[in-house]
């Protein structure tokens, strides 16, 4: 069904983090951007669709102290808003936002980090764009930071902090679907590493290797798939066709996959990254 294409080489290998691959398609310029996190650095590659041109850029986590590792980047993802796309980096120190090509940092938000390390680790993780003007980022304490993003410029502000939880956030997803009330029912819970929303259905990947589909409105479990023999690290949906992609280490020999993304809305092509691997592996439909 899919066959392997030429891989894209990275400047350094991928770290074993959840959802460690983000993709942005720039149709007007026939380019696709990819980002992969390596410890305290984000490797960004811009690949032309004809496969001839690749350019690389590396972004550093801010306030990274070279002697310690407390500036590890937890996640990098693009937020697509109607007026602009922003690249958001979350780390143990805070949240950085860049213009979509990674050229300029437009915003920095520092997390409250204690002076000396405590038993409770501090970091930000889980990024989602909401409607026209908000970017939401999760924090290890369980809070969700809501940023107000203007259509241009760097006047981004923290507008709300939603604090209802005590648990660290792993992933976030959003979509436009109008008026919804969400409730829950009896769900057998285990660690959830990745979540996507599609047409009101919640699709979640779990540590037991299962994928579960829930009805978004009622929280009812629709389907359960015993998909994998290992922890699911990443999940993606091709929004136009509803194809679900979930990978771990099965199809790519001797690689623990940590990021998987469709490269286009139809699901024609997808890409994966693996721990210790310095390339992005690509597949297209046969």
């Amino acid at each position, binding site marked *: 069904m899919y066959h392997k294409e030429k891989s894209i080489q990275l400047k350094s290998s991928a770290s074993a983090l959840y959802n460690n691959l983000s993709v942005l398609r720039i149709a007007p310029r026939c380019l696709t951007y990819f980002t992969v996190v390596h410890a305290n650095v984000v490797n960004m590659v811009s690949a032309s669709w004809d496969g001839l041109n690749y350019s690389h850029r590396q972004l550093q986590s801010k306030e990274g102290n070279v002697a310690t590792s407390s500036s590890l980047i937890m996640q990098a993802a693009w937020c697509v808003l109607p007026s602009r796309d922003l690249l958001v980096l979350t780390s143990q120190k805070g949240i950085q936002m860049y213009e979509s090509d990674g050229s300029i940092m437009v915003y920095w938000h520092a997390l409250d980090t204690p002076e000396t390390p*405590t038993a409770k680790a501090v970091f930000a993780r889980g990024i989602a764009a909401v409607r026209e003007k908000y970017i939401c980022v999760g924090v290890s304490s369980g809070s969700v930071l809501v940023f107000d993003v203007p259509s241009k410029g760097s006047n981004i502000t923290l507008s709300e902090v939603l604090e209802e939880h005590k648990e660290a956030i792993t992933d976030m997803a959003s979509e*436009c679907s109008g008026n919804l*009330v969400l*409730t829950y029912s009896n769900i057998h819970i285990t660690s959830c590493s990745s979540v996507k929303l599609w047409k009101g259905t919640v699709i979640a990947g779990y540590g037991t290797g299962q994928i579960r589909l829930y009805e978004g409105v009622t*929280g009812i479990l629709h389907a359960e798939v015993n998909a994998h023999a290992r922890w699911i690290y990443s999940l993606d949906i091709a929004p136009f066709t509803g194809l679900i992609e979930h990978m771990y280490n099965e199809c790519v020999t001797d690689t623990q996959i940590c990021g998987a993304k469709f490269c286009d809305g139809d699901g024609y092509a997808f890409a994966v990254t693996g721990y210790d691997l310095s390339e992005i592996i690509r597949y297209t439909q046969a």
Partner: protein
Amino acid sequence: MARRITSPSRSSTSASDWLLLAVTWQPREGLQTLIYSAGSSESADRGFLLTTCDCLPILAALHPSPERMSTRTLPLLFINLGGEMLYILDQRLRAQNIPADKAKKVMNDIITTMFNKKFLEELFKPQELYSKKALRTVFDRLAHASIMRLNQASMDKLYDLMTMAFKYQVLLCPRPKDILLVSFNHMDAIRDFVKDTPSILSQVDETNKQLIEIYTPLSGGEFQLIRQTLLIFFQDMHIRVSIFLKDKVQNSNGRFVLPTSGPVPYGTHTPGLIRLFSCSGEEVRRMQFRDCGNYSAALREGSFEMYGDRVIKLGTNMYSVSRPVETHMSGTSKNSSQHTKVNTTPNPLAKEELNLLARLMGGLEVQKSANTDSGFRVNLFATDEEEEEALISRPDELSYEVINIQATKDKQTNAELAKIMGEFGETGEPAPSSSSKGDDLLAMMDGL
């Protein structure tokens, strides 16, 4: 200006394994948000949070409580690496026909130092992982805690083997919590090494109890974070180990083989089943798909108690006299990834490192043997010539750059070191003799 919002009203219902928490509020901007979470109030595991922002659903997948998480990685790293070191030294001591009493003394001395109460207190404090250099210095110190000596090349090789072995164990653990079972395998073996010496055995048992206390309550998600932290530490290390290559668990490019067959992790179902449910929660249909692996059902869970069958074999001693300890120094194949300096320390004597070493030096009591004739050297290579050859030919990128306290021209740093050394005199800690501690520090400065 940010505003923290808490719920004016809250309704919650709980059933056997779910908790519904709903909040509504209307801030002035017109945002309406409903937040729900699900999960047992008892268990640390959670599912995901659904939020509507302006009546839009935002989902967040939740992770269990971050208490005692990646700041709890260091003790596991230290104990497992220490365990591997003991396996290797034990094998080499036998292979070199070191007299049993001397060999036993070395093992006992190292284990005593490793489980030194003050040192472990320091280690178990919530903190970031040490830099690679600092950790290597700690193990250098540990390996020389007795009458045994190791040349630079042998120490490098010892450390290569230790780190690649634990990296392999972390990568291959079926589920993140199994890292704790691997740690218990090491602890069981260490306990066996000192079973004839009650004083040391009780130190080891104490530490084992501490491990159980701190780590058993952690959830799968927290172990996953520990695992991810460890994997970042081991990133880009692809040194080829002879015993791994022979057993076909490592490829010639230094990467480990990840099997797609065998039992699934405890708590996971074998892949292939799709179940569909009706609105009332009844299963209405089942479908099967073929997955490309060949998995069997999970084995029973290993024991997390002081004693018990751990089930997992990772972390047990893979060396024996007939399976020698060797490494290929050509660990950098064409395709090996670039040696990226993640934790580069431009000034190896950055304050943090000094403080760290100071605390460690304060905790380690070295037994300076009065009779230097009893000292001996252990070689990790087959011959002295091989050892020397290894030292010369070691690729630059694999150099561990052990911290050399003497290598500084910075007056301020010298002053700091002097101050730290001064602090040792005030700790009032019982030392074998007051002068030996000073000798010890000087010896360390000279030796590094």
